[in-house]
């Protein structure tokens, strides 16, 4: 029994403490170092922040350059696919354009009316958009996020909304000097206050880790209304984090808990980071 224990101790000591010929550090030293890194990275000391930002800068840039060949192959593949279905797309776009022209007229009228009403209550919304390129789009099954090439030097702040064309895709959760990380709406940890229109109901849209979102914390009566109307989900602007009215996605009648996002998060190349400010003289 004692011999068995001795064998275990010898094997354990040899595995953890002895350095092999070509190993510069023992395993135990590096395990302690990684635990130290985990603990230290959670403190908000200035020096740790600077080191963390430095590591992020170097790794993001390196990853961007190393991924260039792979991204080139991806874009060639996408171009070939687009060419293959060019004619079909043209026909769809032609009818869509006609519909949009008609809708634009009514939208212009609503916009003017909205501006007049805002003037009446002395409120104006100032918003700035910063165009950013997606540096890293590592599609991890566990965390859904992207890295963009704008950071504190471009006045990016944590919590800013990120949009693709007009559609909300996520929010900034980490800012470095020249780049930032954006948590996508599809991430399990993403929770966005939303408004379901045209029924005018408040809800929280939560990510699922998949390509769609889920409705949480809303009234149960909405289920009946949703079955008869096509619901579009917008940001509600509650909490002051996002500008109200940013389109998020649609809810289909067949699955009333599921939100289909407007934007395809796998195809993001350029996004806009939006800051907004509500000014009121009242």
């Amino acid at each position, binding site marked *: 029994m004692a011999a068995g224990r001795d*064998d275990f101790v*010898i*094997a*354990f000591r*040899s*595995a*953890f403490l002895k350095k*092999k*010929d*070509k*190993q*510069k*550090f*023992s*395993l135990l030293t*590096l*395990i302690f*170092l*990684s*635990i*130290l*890194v*985990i603990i230290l*990275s*959670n403190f908000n000391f200035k020096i740790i922040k600077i080191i*963390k930002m430095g*590591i*992020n800068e170097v*790794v*993001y840039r*390196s*990853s961007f350059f*190393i*991924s260039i060949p*792979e*991204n080139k192959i991806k874009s060639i593949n996408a171009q070939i696919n687009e060419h293959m279905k060019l004619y079909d797309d043209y026909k769809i776009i032609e009818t869509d354009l006609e519909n949009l022209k008609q809708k634009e007229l009514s939208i212009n009228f609503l916009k003017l009316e909205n501006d007049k009403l805002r003037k009446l209550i002395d409120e104006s919304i100032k918003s700035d958009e910063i165009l950013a390129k997606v540096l*890293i*789009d*590592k*599609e*991890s*099954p*566990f*965390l859904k*996020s992207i*890295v963009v090439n704008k950071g504190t030097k471009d006045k990016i702040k944590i919590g800013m909304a990120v949009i693709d064309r007009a559609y909300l895709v996520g929010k900034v959760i*980490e800012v470095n000097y020249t780049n930032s*990380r954006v948590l996508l709406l599809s991430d*399990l*940890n993403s929770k966005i206050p939303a408004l379901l229109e045209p029924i005018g109901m408040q809800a929280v849209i939560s990510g699922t*880790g998949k390509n769609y979102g889920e409705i949480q914390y809303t009234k149960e009566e909405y289920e009946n209304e949703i079955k008869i109307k096509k619901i579009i989900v917008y940001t509600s602007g509650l909490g002051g984090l996002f500008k109200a009215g940013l389109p998020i996605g649609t809810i289909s009648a067949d699955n009333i808990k599921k939100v289909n996002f407007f934007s395809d998060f*796998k195809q993001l190349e350029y996004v806009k980071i939006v800051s907004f400010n509500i000014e009121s003289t009242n």
Partner: protein
Amino acid sequence: MSSLNKAPISNTSFSYFPIVILFISVFNEFDFNYLKIQYFSFNFVHILIFFWTLKNPNHLGYLSIFIAGVINDVIVGLPLGLSSFCYLLICSVTAYLRNITLSPNFINDWLSFLFTILLVNSVQVIILDLIFLIQVDYIKYLINTGFTFIFYPLFFFIFNYVNKKIIVKLND
């Protein structure tokens, strides 16, 4: 005389194969962990580290593994140091296995690999969920572990082939 001690560049560069593959895997956007196929993913880095630290640790240093872990954390967005810790846990198991194994055999390695990835993924989920309060999908982790286990034999034969080549070339 000194030329006898020098291995040709092609031979020495071949021995960097595991490190190069490891760093490409963590740096590149392409990831076996996500192949755009629903419920199908496996952790290539775990297989790579397990195999090379078990069979030929001289070609995959612990320091490189630690650095690769930090890079993976930064790119994926995990808390800094977590992947390094998990990768080094794999190294700990393989180092222990190397010390207690007299005659290695594939089935034992494969079963030990299952135990190792279950341990590592459990540790990762516990740290993420309980300490950092980051929500994770347990089912995805379990499926990922399953596929990683299933794919081990395929990569075992590829890596074994490369490992034999490295040994032969270095002995030339």
